[in-house]
């Protein structure tokens, strides 16, 4: 078993993220963000957030990401920061745009108090008298064409931390963390040195979960990387620095057949402060405790503590032999 704590964003920098948003007169919205979605599903999760706040369906939202020519500054997609930072900005920008929509609706309906409205399924209703309503498209249209106020919003969120003091090693950290614990059950073949990870359970707390399917995918993919580190992935170099393991014939990653027979995941929804609706990031946290959990399980099985990875059959057999000969002498 092993547990981990992982910070959102890195230490010693002020990681800023910003987002632009416009709502068009057909009731659709476009978000511009510097995040990079390489398959983890950030655009999906953050479009869900926007749909929730703007009260419009997901298919009315276009998410333009990753093009630094058209999108505002983002420190980068890394350090589990996208859902947390971009999500925070998306939420704030959508709330600002929603207020503008309520203001337009208020002018159309003669109720000049934005707080008296709510939004649902593309329609803006007066709380006390829902029969009184206009669509998001109508409000956006009136706002830009009649009142001269196109619906536009932006938001920025930055972390705060200081570089480590060279004397004391102390730093002011950005204290927004994710947590995780993993348990591995292993079988070690003492004749061949091979390790079979029979079961692996990974439970992570990444705040409020926006999209469980995506979070599970992040956990499983992360565990796959962690198991690779634990068991087989190794960059071997020659003296001159050239790489020996430069193809997948030498640099092994786990295939579908190598994955644990039983693979469980779980999520603990403990809200993260400043996260959008309490959501946090789910990335590096997943692979982090995997190799330690496997290493602890192997130590439990063999009574040997390994301090280098991966735990290849060769390393296991060498350690077993050393243990036997030290017991004999």
């Amino acid at each position, binding site marked *: 078993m092993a547990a981990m704590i992982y910070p959102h964003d890195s230490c010693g920098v002020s990681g800023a993220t910003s987002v632009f948003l416009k709502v068009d007169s057909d009731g659709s919205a476009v978000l511009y963000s510097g995040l990079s979605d*390489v*398959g*983890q*599903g950030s655009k999906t999760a953050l479009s869900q957030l926007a749909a929730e706040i703007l009260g419009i369906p997901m298919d009315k939202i276009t998410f333009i990401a990753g093009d630094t020519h058209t999108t505002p500054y983002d420190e980068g997609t890394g350090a589990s920061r996208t859902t947390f930072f971009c999500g925070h900005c998306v939420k704030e920008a959508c709330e600002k745009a929603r207020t503008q929509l309520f203001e337009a609706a208020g002018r159309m309906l003669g109720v000049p108090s934005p707080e008296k409205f709510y939004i649902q399924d593309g329609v803006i209703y007066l709380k006390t008298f829902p029969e009184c309503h206009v669509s998001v498209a109508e409000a956006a249209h009136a706002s830009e064409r009649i009142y001269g106020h196109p619906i536009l919003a932006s938001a920025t969120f930055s972390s705060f931390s200081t570089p480590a003091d060279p004397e004391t090693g102390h730093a002011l950290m950005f204290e927004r963390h994710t947590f995780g614990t993993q348990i591995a059950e292993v079988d070690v073949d003492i004749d061949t040195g091979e390790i079979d990870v029979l079961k692996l359970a990974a439970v992570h707390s990444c705040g409020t979960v926006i999209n469980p*399917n*995506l979070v*599970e*995918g992040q956990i*499983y*993919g*992360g*565990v*796959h*990387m962690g198991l690779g580190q634990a068991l087989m992935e190794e960059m071997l170099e020659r003296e001159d620095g050239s790489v020996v393991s430069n*193809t*997948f*014939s030498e640099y092994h*990653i786990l*295939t*579908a*057949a*190598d*994955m644990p027979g039983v*693979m469980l995941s779980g999520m603990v929804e403990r809200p993260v402060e400043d996260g959008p609706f309490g959501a946090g990031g789910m990335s590096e946290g997943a692979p982090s405790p995997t190799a330690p959990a496997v290493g602890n399980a192997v130590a439990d099985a063999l009574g040997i503590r390994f301090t280098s990875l991966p735990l290849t059959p060769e390393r296991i057999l060498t350690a077993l032999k050393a243990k036997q000969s030290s017991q004999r002498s």
Partner: protein
Amino acid sequence: MLIHFHVNGKACAVDAAPDEKLLDTLREKLQITSVKRGCENGDCGACTVLLDGRPVASCIFLTVKARNHSIQTIEAFGEPGHLHPLQEKFRAHGAFQCGFCAPGVTLSAISLLNQNPTPTEEEVRRAISGNLCRCSGYVQIVEAIMDYVEERRAAREEL
């Protein structure tokens, strides 16, 4: 050399050099870019195509050897808007992330299911073990395939 073969059911003739790889012919001459260029070493499976129904790594397969054979890429089974039911399962389970491995995994799985419509989970894992995936840990991929297998089994039993 003029090589005749079938690609996704259509007769094709391409002028191929003797050392030309099928991957290059498909991507560069026939513009079928769903066949991914990964390791080009026969290790990753991103370039998988079906040759007479069996998966081969097109990056280490000579085009001349495909003469008079039938090649299938993922387009033979599903297109945007008309997905193969297995692709629908992948979507429902959120099986893929970056998707680079997806065409190869899907073809390997389809080939297995054509030979054995009721594989065990272990057989599924073995069948797709030539397709490396860096993102998913294969968990939701395998779940989706097994879900498809179970649904088909139930449908057959109802008949």
